[in-house]
């Protein structure tokens, strides 16, 4: 029965489930995600609410890029390990990443376009 199950398309072999990480890796990734979220909030607190002097003053101009970087790290960790893109077929990665790139381009284009239009009127 196990051999039959192992040969089932859509279950173990074709979707590379045998390559999926185990619970220990999942927990480690979970801890990293939690730390990154705590870092995000810390960057917000220090960079905005304690920006008068010290590290806050240094951090203040780069709060947005740092937050975006931390967010991208969290996104990549969830997609690679929890959504198994690292171990699954590359076709799944393509089907996900291609629209993701278009989505990023759409956001950048919208912001740039409206920033330009705004600068014309004011």
């Amino acid at each position, binding site marked *: 029965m196990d051999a039959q199950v192992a040969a089932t398309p859509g279950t173990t072999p074709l979707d590379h489930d045998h390559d999926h990480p185990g619970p220990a890796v999942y927990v480690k990734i979970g801890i990293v995600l939690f730390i990154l979220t705590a870092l995000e*909030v810390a960057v917000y607190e220090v960079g905005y609410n304690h920006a008068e002097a010290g590290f806050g003053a240094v951090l203040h101009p780069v709060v947005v890029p740092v937050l975006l970087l931390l967010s991208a790290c969290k996104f990549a960790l969830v997609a690679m390990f929890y959504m198994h893109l690292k171990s699954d077929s590359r076709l799944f990665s393509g089907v996900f990443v291609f629209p993701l790139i278009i989505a990023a381009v759409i956001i950048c284009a919208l912001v740039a376009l409206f920033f330009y239009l705004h600068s014309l009127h004011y």
Partner: protein
Amino acid sequence: MADTAHAAHVGTHMEAHSETSTGLDSRKLAIWTFIGSECLFFASLIGTYLVYRGRSLVGPFPHEEWVSPAGVHFEPILEIKLVTVGTALLLFSSLFVVLALNGAQRGRRGQTLTWLGMTILCGMFFIGMQVYEFTHFVHKGLTIKTNLFGASFFTLTGFHGTHVTIGVIWLITVFILALRRKLPPEKALNLEIAALYWHFVDVVWVVIFPVVYLMK
């Protein structure tokens, strides 16, 4: 009786060997395609939020105080602490659902039920947090019609909350399947597909949280 069992066995066997041109399960490819299309949907909402960011003519504002022409004082409206707890729980729910999937793939029903139950609870807490937040905002004078921030904020987070609600309902149906012993290892893909949707809802929030709540 024996014939029925034989027919069921042959049916399972036939299903087990149904090939696809990609060599991948069509349902899994379909959910990934759907997730890809959802990326574009949320990109348009996040893009709209960013375009309207800081363009509101009247308050309440997300991070700044505001005094109306009538002299009414409005505090900054966003509450970072509450949303941080909701964000952490949503991240943990992603961990829980992947542990549940691990249990389902190995035929460990207890593990599946426990972690799936935890995931559903985290999802429900997140929805509760959002309902509280929306109600609180309305009481503080911010509705979808108040200003550009209100319109883009409620649309973006409201659509995300709707996705979370659909995800919770989906996970509850899978939980019931597991409870009724209808989620054997060979059907773990049913949970994997629901889990992929749930992770997507999580990664969308991973973007929304800093963009809406943390960036001034």
